[in-house]
């Protein structure tokens, strides 16, 4: 009896471990997917600021591949800008708030993806 419990617990923890590893990877992939669906409208698919909407925008979106500009922003500031919008960080209202679209984890993953795009850290 005891032995079978041990087997079950062993199997369960293995399963949990198996689910944890790809989870991180899945999150990164989802962040990229989210970016290319929502943010690319303005920031462009490659993140360089040239989305299809930019032609009629009076303030141009930030170039997320610009390492110099992006390294000047902390992760916390990036997250605030994404969650609460440009106005919350004294930037243009054209940068919308996204906290109704993404949960906290997804917002963190987006910050991570921005760091990938700029190949920079704070």
């Amino acid at each position, binding site marked *: 009896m005891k032995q079978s419990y041990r087997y079950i617990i062993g199997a369960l923890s293995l399963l949990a471990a198996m689910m944890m590893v790809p989870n991180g990877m899945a999150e990164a992939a989802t962040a990229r997917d989210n970016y290319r669906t929502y943010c690319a409208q303005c920031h462009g698919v490659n993140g360089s600021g040239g*989305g*299809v909407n930019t032609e009629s925008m009076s303030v141009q979106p930030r170039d997320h591949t610009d390492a110099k500009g992006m390294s000047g922003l902390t992760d916390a500031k990036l997250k605030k800008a994404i969650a609460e919008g440009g106005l919350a960080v004294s930037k243009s209202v054209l940068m919308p708030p996204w*906290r109704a679209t993404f949960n906290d984890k997804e917002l963190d993953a987006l910050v991570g993806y921005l760091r990938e795009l700029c190949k920079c850290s704070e």
Partner: protein
Amino acid sequence: MGLRDKRMRLAGFGLLLFAIAVLFSAVSVGSALNVEAAGTAGATDLTESAISIKKGKIILKSRCGKCHAIKGPAATTLKDFKARKGPDLFYAGVKYNEEWLIKWLANPVPIRPAGFRYFKNIIVTEGSDDTVNWDALAEHVALTPDEAEMVAATLMTFMAYKGKVKKNALTEEPADAFMGEMNFDKFSGCLACHEIEPGYGGVTGPEVYTVAERLKPDFIYSYLKSPQSFDPKSMMPDKELGENFLQVLTKYMLSLEAPPDGEYDEGEEE
């Protein structure tokens, strides 16, 4: 009760079910084959409008369901959201004006300049801005005027989300055209994604110059207040608008007018 009685009853019941099934399939086959023959379905005691709603439903299922969700729910995962091929129609009755549906279904014109899912319609080149692939945009299937009327009648019965739409949301205070446009453009940044006239404004959202014709005012107000409560994965962000902005923006869009026929598409190509 004897065994025999039971069997007889069972057989009788079976026969009844069979008869009902035959009747139903006769009605639907009949209407699928001859959509124009409204009112001649006979045999049943359906009223004329009920018949046309039923015929509309058959058209929706057979010719529209592969691109439109005619039953809920909305997409809750990005994968599902991206896979959808047309706007959800399962809450059409709380969203669209019937008159507009009848007109548009028979004579559809583009609503979303860059297409329904813009990211499937763009050309991405390293080192330059993304551009819309205008040639890839497909024309929408058109119905005959009779079909359009039936389908519109059916769509108006799709009342999901009724509880999410605030009734009589707009105040009496009239729209202010100047402040409305200022708000739409400068204060709220809506122009980034929406055109207020052909060729002027963003291309990923639906144009808003025909919103008055297309959408119910209460729906517009409620959608602006929370796009995610209608479509959790919507590409439209919740701009966290206060009551005053909701009023001003809704009334502003309702005050816009579509340009004369034939001027829809121009100006976007360059």
